[in-house]
Structure formats: structure tokens, C-alpha cells
């Protein structure tokens, strides 16, 4: 089991529940799919910022919030919710201000989830 700051970024109990509900063998594939999809969603949100396309940002943030909850990436989930709400309220400045924080949270979740998978497959 990974320890330290990496595991503080995600909730290992959520991952244990997911492992029990699906299968241990499927977790690496699920984690990779989540990370790839999350990166793509963040990319579309960033691309939508210059034109303040808040409908796209709200939709992508909503989906990112939901999938991040599945993997216990609670900081990504929290920030996605805030971004979704700001986008729905039409507050482009608040969305823009949160994007760097989201990027950092996603990087931390990426590290933690990869450590979790490494431990599973050792």
C-alpha cells in the first residue's frame, strides 16, 4: 500500500470498494482510462477558456467531478464541482482562476493512482 502524501490525495477506501465491486485485475485498466479521460476533459476545458465557452466547461467539469468521485480523487472532485458551478453561473473569471489549482490536483491524483496501481501489480 502506498503511503505518505500520495495517498492523502485519494481515498484508498473508495478504490478498495471499486476493486471489490469489479475486480483487482481490472483496476489498472480502469485507472488508466480515468486518467486519460480526465486529461482530455481538462484539455477541452482549457481550450474553451479563451472563448468563455462555459457550457462546454460546465459539461466537462460535471463529468470530471463524477468520474473523480469513483476513484476517490476527492480534490479533483471538489474543484470540478466548483468550476461546474461557476460555469453555470456564468463566472468565467472564477473558472479561469481555478484551472491552475485543478491542474495541480489532477497531477497529484495521477501520481497517487499510479502508485496505487504499482502496489497492486507488484
Amino acid at each position, binding site marked *: 500500500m502506498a503511503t505518505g502524501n500520495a495517498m492523502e490525495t485519494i481515498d484508498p477506501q473508495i478504490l478498495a470498494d471499486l476493486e471489490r*465491486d*469489479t*475486480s483487482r485485475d481490472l483496476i489498472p485498466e*480502469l485507472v488508466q*482510462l480515468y486518467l486519460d*479521460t480526465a486529461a482530455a476533459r481538462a484539455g477541452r476545458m482549457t481550450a474553451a477558456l479563451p472563448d468563455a465557452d462555459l457550457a462546454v466547461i460546465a459539461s466537462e467539469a460535471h463529468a470530471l467531478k463524477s*468520474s473523480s*468521485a*469513483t476513484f476517490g480523487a476527492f480534490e479533483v472532485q471538489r474543484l470540478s464541482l466548483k468550476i461546474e458551478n461557476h460555469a453555470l453561473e456564468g463566472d468565467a473569471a472564477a473558472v479561469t482562476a481555478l484551472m491552475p489549482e485543478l491542474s495541480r490536483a489532477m497531477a497529484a491524483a495521477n501520481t497517487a493512482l499510479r502508485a496505487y496501481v504499482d502496489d497492486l501489480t507488484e
Partner: protein
Amino acid sequence: MKDESGFHLSVVGMPSLRALAPQGRIRFDSQFRATTWEETTNDAGDDAAEHRVHILVAEDDPTTRMILRNMLEKAEFAVTTANDGTEAVAALRNGAFDLVLLDIQMPGMNGIDVARHVRRAAGGAKIPVIAVTSETEDDQVDAMLAVGFDGIMGKPVRRDDLIRVILAALAHAAA
């Protein structure tokens, strides 16, 4: 089907469901909570696959879609997936399903629109439709209930909860 103690649903040929409860018949109380289990004979034999409950899953997030498929197939449901609402409607035109699981927020046609389509289709009034969603605002839940969803599952989905809600909806439809 219904008897004096509540609704029940045969799940013969679904060993994974029997693993959730020890024997082949699931019994529900009046609130459709799985409560007790009754010894029964598994008479499905080699015909089990022909009698599998067929579920359509419409979910645009690929990770959630894979998770739902895995959970349902482990419980020996037959599963067809759709990547969005438009694909779901096409699948409904081309196939017969015993139950539909719908994500609510999907690009294009959302889950509520798909549910309306199900309800308007011939025989669609009796097909259980369950929302799988992170939408929790009262007005959104009200909209789901107004269109006739038979159940609402919050995300992230837990397997036991999902199977319980599905079985309850199937039992209700069969009653």
C-alpha cells in the same frame, strides 16, 4: 409475480446473484427491499443464457461505462452499451431490453430525453428505467420522477446497491 409475503423474482441461471443471496429466488418486501431468500430449484440449466435479463446502459463517460458493464456482467446480466443518448435511442429501436440504465447528463440527447423516448415507445411504459447520476438537486430529481424513472442511483455506484435497485425494478415490472 407476487405472493402473500411480497414480490419475488426468479433469478435462476444467475449464480452471481445467488452469491449476493444464497438461493435462487429473491423476495422483496412491500418497499421492494430484498429481505428473505427461499430455497428453489435452478431449472435454467443450459438455457440460462437465453433467459438472461438484457440491460441497455447509456453512459457517455467511458470509465463509468466500463465499470457498469463489469458489475452487470459479473451478475450475469446481458449488457448492451450506448455512448450517448442518441446511440441509446438507436439501440432501443433495434433491440428488446428488459431494463434501461441511463446517465442523465450526456451530450446531445440527455437521459431524461431518452427516458421520454422509452415511455412513448410501444410497450415502453413497462420497461424499468433507472437513472445513474450525480445530479442530486431536488428539481433535477423531480424531473426524473416526472418522466417516470423507476429508480435513481447516485454516483459513484456500488455494485450491491446497483443490483438491488435493478432487481427491485424488475420485480415491480413483473408484478
